[in-house]
């Protein structure tokens, strides 16, 4: 069972307290009706699904209830960083370089 650090509670908890929320930093368009079908499909369905570092949403559903973002390595399953919702995506290249050390 993975341990995940919750940036709101300030503690590590087993992953069973959390719920995965898909890729992070995909904002819902402010005026969906102005989007073309292609643009809307892009928002709805297209995800990067990278091999390696990925920014994703998690919710501490059985804890403080908050959504937050995390950088996880999809190869090693390691969490490199967690940050609160609304904070900027960290420098992924820098994180990857640090993780490689």
């Amino acid at each position, binding site marked *: *069972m993975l341990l995940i650090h919750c940036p*709101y*509670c*300030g*503690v590590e*908890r*087993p992953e*069973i*307290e959390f719920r995965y929320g898909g890729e992070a930093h995909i904002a819902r368009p402010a005026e969906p009706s102005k989007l073309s079908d292609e643009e809307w499909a892009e928002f709805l369905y297209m995800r990067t699904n990278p091999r390696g570092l990925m920014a994703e949403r998690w919710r501490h559903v*059985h*804890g*403080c*209830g*908050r959504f937050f973002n995390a950088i996880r390595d999809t190869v090693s399953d390691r969490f490199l960083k967690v940050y609160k919702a609304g904070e900027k995506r960290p420098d992924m290249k820098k994180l990857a370089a640090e993780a490689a050390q």
Partner: protein
Amino acid sequence: MSEIAIHQANGAAPVVSARGAKVNLAAPLARFSFRGPEAACVKAGPAFRTGLPTTPLSSSHTQTRAALWLGPDEWLLLAADGSAGQIFGVIEAALGDTPHALVDVSERNTALIVSGPRAAWLLNSQLFLDLDDTVFHVGMATRTLFAKAEIVLWRTGKDQFVIECWRSFLPYVAGLLAEVARELEVA
């Protein structure tokens, strides 16, 4: 820290009464979910007569009132005195137009009091938190999982914990505690 005794055993036979561990159903309490930003939290504290803590996983309490931090804008308020309706009115009046949400959940939750030198051991049969009292110290509170049931765990003494859970999950939680406690009956 003074003794925390908001929850009192309800007088019925204990769920578990074994060597080193006891589990009692708690008597009814007035309970509220309080939600809101800092501006609301500072007003609600005095109205509820105990401050709403802002440190994660902490609680504040008086003889008859307690506020448990559950999230950055969420508290569980517990009151052993006064009716839910009266307390609701007092807090609402104090908050006025300050955005917030106060919801009576007195009947949603029920509580178990788990006590005794083996209380932490009993809980750790289903609960993955480290209950060493230097790690999860007296006064700490958290929402977490007890096997497959979501609960709020509150440490009210070195050897005493309160489990708050939704009422339909109580038989499951109590049943597991009773099952696990069986081995404590063996000398």
